[in-house]
């Protein structure tokens, strides 16, 4: 069992700024202290620092309106930062008062609505960015791109004659054709249905891998982010709250927001003792030496559905089944404790529990995530587990 090093630190900036600026110089993209507001006094982005290494895929993840698209547009050069600097391969491209225009940045972008030019064929769209290339190279590159996105048969079609998935692949090929230093994807899958989305996600991933390109992708869909990203940048209200690998973000979320936004997390009240934390689901051992100073005896402990097990009558804690939903090949149960606190548990599909039934469960966390108790905090809004984290388009 490991204990999160970021434990109890509600401010993420400490961990973020610990990576030195010198590291960032070797990055494809690095930015420091980026701030942006469209109306005075209403910041959209606050003090963002981000370094992207060559070949990585970074997902900007956050709820709607957290500023992730604005950050993308700053990187592309469509907006000017109010403060901070952006470097693309060691070259200063943005700072207050100076912006290298987008056409001089060699940054490819795929837009949410794809922005295909409706009056041009697939070939013409893909070749649009190659106008400075010699004709022979242009032809070769077009063929290469068409093969990459598997659209050789559609070269002469117009965008409106293509399906949504095909349109997206054209947009991708068009952005990749001029061999940009960096590729930006703005909610690339939001216009597609779930089946297509999953299929395209895999396709896009393989295309990006083949192209070997550094990519920044904006999404509000955590499943998408977790499956595509090498690095996750979780944003909340204009701030970058955690920048780490998906694994790290899931196992060691550094704020309550991240803990609840990624994965299905609920909090249990806990009481801090010498070497254990007492919760309603039993006592959890912990090593106080690994933990920075604890403010008080009251803490909240993160509980993930994967870590809850059913047990026999003689052990565990009694709970009541509130709700059931299939989730892939398993079932997600919403359970209620005697105190009224609800949490989620993931059991095999063969387990059949009726709503209202009383069962007993135990809890074995693999990573202990503890935050100082926030009595003033509003408890989680839903007392039911969502059926699917990507349920938006499916329903």
């Amino acid at each position, binding site marked *: 069992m490991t204990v999160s090093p970021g434990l109890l630190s509600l401010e993420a900036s400490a961990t973020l700024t610990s990576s030195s600026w010198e590291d960032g110089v070797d990055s494809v993209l690095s930015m420091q202290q980026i701030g942006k507001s469209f109306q005075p006094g209403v910041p959209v982005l606050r003090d963002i620092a981000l370094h992207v290494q060559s070949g990585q895929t970074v997902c900007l993840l956050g709820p709607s309106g957290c500023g992730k698209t604005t950050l993308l547009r700053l990187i592309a050069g469509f907006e000017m930062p109010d403060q901070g600097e952006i470097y693309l391969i060691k070259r200063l491209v943005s700072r207050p008062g100076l912006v290298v225009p987008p056409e001089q940045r060699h940054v490819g972008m795929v837009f949410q609505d794809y922005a295909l030019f409706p009056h041009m064929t697939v070939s013409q769209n893909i070749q*649009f960015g190659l*106008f400075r290339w010699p004709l022979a190279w242009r032809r070769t590159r077009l063929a290469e791109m068409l093969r990459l996105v598997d659209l050789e048969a559609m070269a002469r079609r117009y965008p409106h004659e293509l399906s949504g998935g095909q349109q997206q692949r054209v947009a991708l090929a068009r952005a990749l054709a001029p061999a940009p230093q960096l590729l930006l994807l703005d909610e690339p899958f939001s216009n597609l249905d779930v089946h297509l989305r999953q299929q395209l996600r895999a396709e896009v991933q393989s295309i990006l891998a083949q192209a070997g390109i550094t990519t920044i992708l904006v999404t509000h869909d955590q499943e998408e982010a977790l499956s595509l990203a090498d690095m996750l940048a979780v944003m909340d209200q204009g701030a970058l709250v955690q920048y780490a690998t998906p694994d790290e973000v899931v196992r060691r979320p550094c704020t309550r927001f991240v803990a609840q936004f990624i994965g299905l997390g609920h909090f249990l009240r806990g009481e801090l003792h010498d070497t254990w934390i007492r919760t309603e689901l039993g006592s959890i051992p912990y090593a106080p030496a690994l933990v920075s100073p604890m403010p008080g005896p009251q803490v909240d402990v993160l509980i993930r559905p994967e870590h809850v097990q059913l047990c026999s009558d003689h052990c565990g804690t009694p709970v009541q089944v509130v709700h059931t939903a299939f989730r892939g090949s398993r079932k997600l149960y919403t359970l209620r404790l005697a105190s009224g606190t609800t949490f989620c548990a993931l059991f095999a599909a063969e387990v059949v529990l009726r709503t209202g039934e009383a069962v007993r469960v135990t809890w074995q966390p693999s990573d202990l995530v503890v935050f100082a108790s926030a009595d003033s905090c509003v408890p989680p809004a839903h007392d039911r587990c969502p059926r699917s984290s990507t349920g938006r388009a499916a329903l």
Partner: protein
Amino acid sequence: MVSHPGQVVSASGVQGGRWVSIWSLLALTIAAGVSVPLLAVLSSFLTPAGDVWRHLWQTQLLELILNTLGLLIGVGVGTVLVGTGLAWLVVYYRFPGQTLFEWGLILPLAIPAYVLGFVCLGLFDFTGPLQTLLRGLLGAHLRLPTLRSYWGVTLMMTLVFYPYVYLLARAAFLGQGATALETARSLGRTPLRAFLVVTLPMARPALVAGGALAMMEALADVGTVATFGYRTLTEAIYRVWYGMFDRPAATQLASGLLGFALLLLLVERLSRGRARYIETYRRGTGVTPTRLHGWRAGLATGACLAVLGPGFLVPVGQLGVWTWRTVQAGQLAPTFGTLLGNTVYLATLATAGTCLLALVMAYASRLSVSPSVRWASQCATMGYALPGSVVAVGVLLPLAWLDHTIVAWLAARLGQSGSLLFTGSAAGLLFAYLVRFLAVSLQTVDASLTRISPSLDDAARSLGAGTGRVLRRIHLPLLRSGVLTALILVFVEVMKEMPATLLLRPFGLNTLAIEVWQRTADAMWQEAAAPALAIVGAGILPVLLAVRLSVRR
């Protein structure tokens, strides 16, 4: 190592900024140039003209203002109702003749109001064919209500100006696609209610723009109201100018008229609000028209005929008959070919110039967020609301001053005086056309430019295209139909334009419109028919071109 590429960045960074400011600068220059005549008219307020004002107020000013207001309201309501209604029928329904009407309903655009006016007066005259026929059928005491009234003038103008609304409304309905309408129907609205609560509000910018154009036309018209004896402000300016030769008083009235024009512009801008109506290109299905049967189909066909008949078919037929008689009698003026050539020449030059300037202005206001460019483009559209005669005065005053300055300078330098550079050539007239018709092309180009999603610009720029290339490769091709509409509208407008031509034409340069004016002033209907028919015919050609291109699209 942190490098210091600040110098490199500042060079390219400034370049991006400079492009924007070049466009803004161009827009501001055009706006300034176009505003010169307006300022010249406004400055007439500084010349004391108290006596004239007192006289006007005592005799007719209130009546003139009320008449003008009444006409504007009547024409505005009439054209929006007729234009929107017909566009709705043609886009959403199939009925006998629908495909013909779809483009045929644009045809009245080729007929100037003053031509329709004199043809109808000729037809409805006591001695005209209609009354003669009715008297023969119903008895000698039959009297029809006179056309020389408020309702007559409003009807004439509605019949010829509704295509402004029709064209824009139809384009807006087609551009919306079916998705919004179907969403509304899925939410329980009937087709009619869905049209009223979704389609119409979405098309509102187009409808209001069309209505504003029609009302500006009505405000500028001199020929019709003069022939019908309906007294408006514009007509009074004309009378003061020619009757009393009192140029200061005429310009005083003109500056008062500017108030009406500003009011119209304000209405147009306010109703658009701050909303940016952006239409991503049609991904969903287009509109699927409903087929009408039985009496409904008959009613639809009848409605189209009821507008197209008196607005185009009957007057063109009558003009044809009169022209035929003239040719038969060998009375066709020998100068006819020259008149036609002059007209087409002037119209082509003015149209090309106007649309080029409109493109620059519209593009500048898309690129620049600065309010000064927005303001400039609004300034540039004011000339259209002014009557041609007033624009002519506004053009004449500064150009005459310029000419005389140049002549004086030449005389001082070379010891000999040259000819008058601007007022002596067609340059002044072309300038007046630019001032007057920039609004037509700018509104059309601007409307279709705002329909292009900004993400297309962004996509092109992220692919390395500079502003110029974005304009050439993305906007111009996508704007083609919009620019074409603008070209057609301006061409037809210039051909019809009468008062400014009358005042500014260089000596000896006559056009068809002037010929019509001179003949109708003498009530020689039949003699005016041939040049009028030529104006109508030339006006039809671009309309047909528009039809071909819109079909191919």
